[in-house]
């Protein structure tokens, strides 16, 4: 068996909540298993971020009967990237702009139970590098936790929508915003924040779920006296970036929290490293890395850096999908990561040892990764530096995969990756134009990758490190994926079309146009014995602005939007 779901892969609080009142341990287990199978309690469904639903009512045999159960207007346009969560018969879904709203809905009908409107100031767009997106909320212990664009974290009563506490994680006016849901481990709600290019020094922070008081804070850029501070030149560590802005994962067995970190700042590598590929020890740890934290203390256990002294904006933030893979006959606990740098990493999550790292999209900046050291074999021509612009760099800055979540199906053994095939020319000019820093150069020209397509839904065998099937798209930056025990994989694209495929063969089984570009990952859940599939639509607005003519195609594909669609039979 490749992967087994256990209670440990679900929040403890949820397991406890359903345990009360049941007699026999066996009945309790069976009931817990059903409840666990029915819900979708956090962003990636479980701590393992697989986005695999064990539900199998909807299959290839009956998907033709899938129809709209309800839709819901989110009341907020553009960059709606939320994965709804479902606990019991209640769905919690957030919107863009703050979030502007968090709704609690009857998961069967869409009837509104409550609406939470956090008091988010109206100037956040100015400080959000990459749009006013929000990717969802987290449930634990009867509370909903909301990370906010204004750098705050709020806890809301899941039953009433009443705000319980709000704490400030970071000053958003330094260009640091929170766009992703936090991770709850025991009594702690853990979050990072964004702003890697704008002078932030990254940290991961844990707060008490009942009070909002800080439990621990760990810098992801070490200071003087800490290990690896000497991987930064001069005082550049003070504003080194390496912010963990996306989604965390957790392994209860080792009590380890995993998080990816962003690119280092500023973009000009000579400020923080040598300015070329001979970076020596100036690798800028722990930027563009996967970092393993001890959950109890926040202490860093180990790290795997994918892109040392990054010069391409290859954030290492992409989600870590945890699974136990059979590799060379041995069941191995791994994390999988489709890194922005174009390589797919399979790493032993108990030791931090790289098992394999192979190209999953057209990639030119490096030929391979040394699995012993993690060091990429770079093409010196493709590394931009002072007076050394680079041409034909693949992937471009949005990466082989961006934030849109992949999924892993233990039954097929495949990972479903929303990948990009885009390249770029780049120089080291700061492209920002703001107070005290005048405009210098043109936007980084964006070029379609080889092969005449710009995105591909990839079904990837993580053990063999090869593509099994793919569905190409004329646009990059398509939506996240969901895979189910019904042998289905769901995926929305930037044209606003929501598709279902046979998870094994890649055969398209069903599709429906939903009117605005899809970035969010779909989810599946069951209430009263009926399986539902839900997805949020509402295309991105800020990212295309970085991408010239390619960006124009992205925004022309559909209007802005903001709606939830839920399907059932």
């Amino acid at each position, binding site marked *: 068996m490749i992967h087994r779901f256990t209670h440990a892969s679900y929040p403890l609080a949820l397991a406890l909540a359903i345990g009360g009142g049941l007699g026999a341990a066996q009945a309790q287990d069976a009931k817990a298993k059903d409840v666990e199978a029915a819900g979708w309690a956090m962003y990636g469904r479980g701590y393992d971020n697989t986005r695999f639903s064990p539900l199998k009512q909807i299959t290839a045999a009956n998907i033709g009967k899938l129809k709209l159960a309800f839709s819901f207007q989110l009341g907020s346009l553009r960059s709606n990237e939320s994965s709804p969560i479902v606990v019991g018969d209640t769905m919690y879904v957030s919107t863009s702009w703050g979030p502007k709203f968090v709704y609690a809905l009857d998961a069967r009908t869409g009837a509104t139970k409550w609406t939470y409107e956090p008091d988010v100031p109206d100037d956040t767009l*100015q400080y959000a590098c990459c749009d006013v997106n929000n990717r969802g909320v987290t449930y634990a212990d009867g509370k909903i936790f909301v990370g906010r664009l204004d750098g705050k974290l709020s806890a809301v009563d899941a039953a009433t929508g009443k705000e319980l506490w709000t704490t400030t994680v970071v000053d958003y006016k330094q260009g640091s915003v929170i766009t992703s849901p936090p991770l709850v481990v025991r009594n702690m709600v853990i979050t990072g924040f964004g702003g890697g290019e704008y*002078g932030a020094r990254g940290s991961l922070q844990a707060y008490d779920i009942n009070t909002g008081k800080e439990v621990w804070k760990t810098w992801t850029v070490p200071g003087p006296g800490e290990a690896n501070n000497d991987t930064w030149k001069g005082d550049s560590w003070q504003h080194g970036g390496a912010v963990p802005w996306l989604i965390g994962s957790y392994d209860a067995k080792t009590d380890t929290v995993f998080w990816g970190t962003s690119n280092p700042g500023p973009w000009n590598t000579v400020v923080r490293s040598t300015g070329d590929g001979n970076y020596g020890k100036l690798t800028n740890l722990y930027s563009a890395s996967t970092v393993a934290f001890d959950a109890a203390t926040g202490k860093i256990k180990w790290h795997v850096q994918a892109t040392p002294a990054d010069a391409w904006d290859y954030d290492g933030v992409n989600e870590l999908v945890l699974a136990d893979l059979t590799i060379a006959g041995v069941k191995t606990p791994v994390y999988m990561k489709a890194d922005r740098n174009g390589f797919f990493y399979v790493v032993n999550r108990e030791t931090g040892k790289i098992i394999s790292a192979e190209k999953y999209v057209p990639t030119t900046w490096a030929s391979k990764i040394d699995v012993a050291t993690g060091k990429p074999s770079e093409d010196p021509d493709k590394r931009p530096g002072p007076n050394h612009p680079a041409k034909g760099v693949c992937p471009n800055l949005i990466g082989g995969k961006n934030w849109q979540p992949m999924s892993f199906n233990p039954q097929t053994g495949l990972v479903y990756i929303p990948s990009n095939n885009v390249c770029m020319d780049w120089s080291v000019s700061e492209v920002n134009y703001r*107070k005290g820093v005048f405009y210098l150069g043109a936007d980084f020209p964006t070029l379609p990758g080889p092969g005449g397509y710009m995105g591909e839904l990839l079904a990837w065998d993580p053990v063999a490190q090869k593509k099994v099937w793919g569905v190409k798209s004329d646009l990059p930056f398509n939506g996240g994926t969901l895979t189910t025990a019904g042998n289905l994989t769901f995926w929305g694209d930037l044209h606003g079309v929501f598709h279902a495929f046979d998870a094994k063969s890649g055969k398209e089984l069903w599709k429906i146009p939903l009117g605005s570009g899809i970035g969010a990952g779909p989810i599946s859940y069951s209430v009263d014995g009926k399986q539902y599939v839900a997805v949020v639509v509402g295309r991105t607005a800020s990212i295309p602005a970085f991408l010239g003519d390619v960006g124009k195609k992205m925004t022309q594909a559909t209007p802005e939007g903001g709606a939830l669609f839920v399907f059932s039979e």
Partner: protein
Amino acid sequence: MRALKFIAPAVALALACGAAASQAAVPALRLCADPANLPFSSNAAEATQKGMPGMYVEIGQAVAQALGRPMETVWSLSYFGKRNLRATLLAGQCDLAVGLPAVQDFMGPRVIFTRPILNLGYALVVAKDRPASRLDDLKGQRVAVQFGSPPQGLLAARSDITSVTAMDPEEAMRRLSAGEADAAFIWGASASYINHTALQDRFKVIPVDAPQMQFPAAIGFSSKRAALRDEIDALLGALLNFEWDVPKTVRADPSTGLRTGPVEALLAP
């Protein structure tokens, strides 16, 4: 509003005659400006009360007066400058933005410009009693630079000067005046403004003349507003021929609080 002295008498006279009759019918000229970016623009109560809304606002007022139109300011923060311009200037929320880089590839053909009206650039800031006047005079010393700025990259590429990184010109000047740095190498206009308003002119501000250090700036418009651009461009010619010297006035008159040492008016038509 503070009386500005740079409108030529003939133009001012023409305005005075026409103004009463036409004011109501003439739509306001809408200036895009940052509410918190002195010495360039501010909507802070103090700045408004003193009649010192910033150089870009003053230039906007001068242009509006010369056009015989009232001026309205559309305030929006420019932390991300290009995005801000997309949401304001290019979305038709306002008509003009002062102080944009006068280069064609700034935002492509969507943004068009008048002739350059200012030179803006980076400058060295050192104590008045120090002999330093160029970068090579600062070897072995600590120099404050802004994160992500060209001076930061330039200093990082040499091993004989230690960078002290600041997040904005205010922090750089604060660290300089606190003795945490021996000099600063930052945006000249901001340095001059802070030096004058907060630091009693203790420092001298020396423009750095090197590639990527000085930039011509102009008034920018959406490409859909070519007629307005042409009208204002022609007017600038006239103003230049008369007394188009807002920056000079500002620089020469400490009472305005807007002295901006390295800012140079391009007086040649």
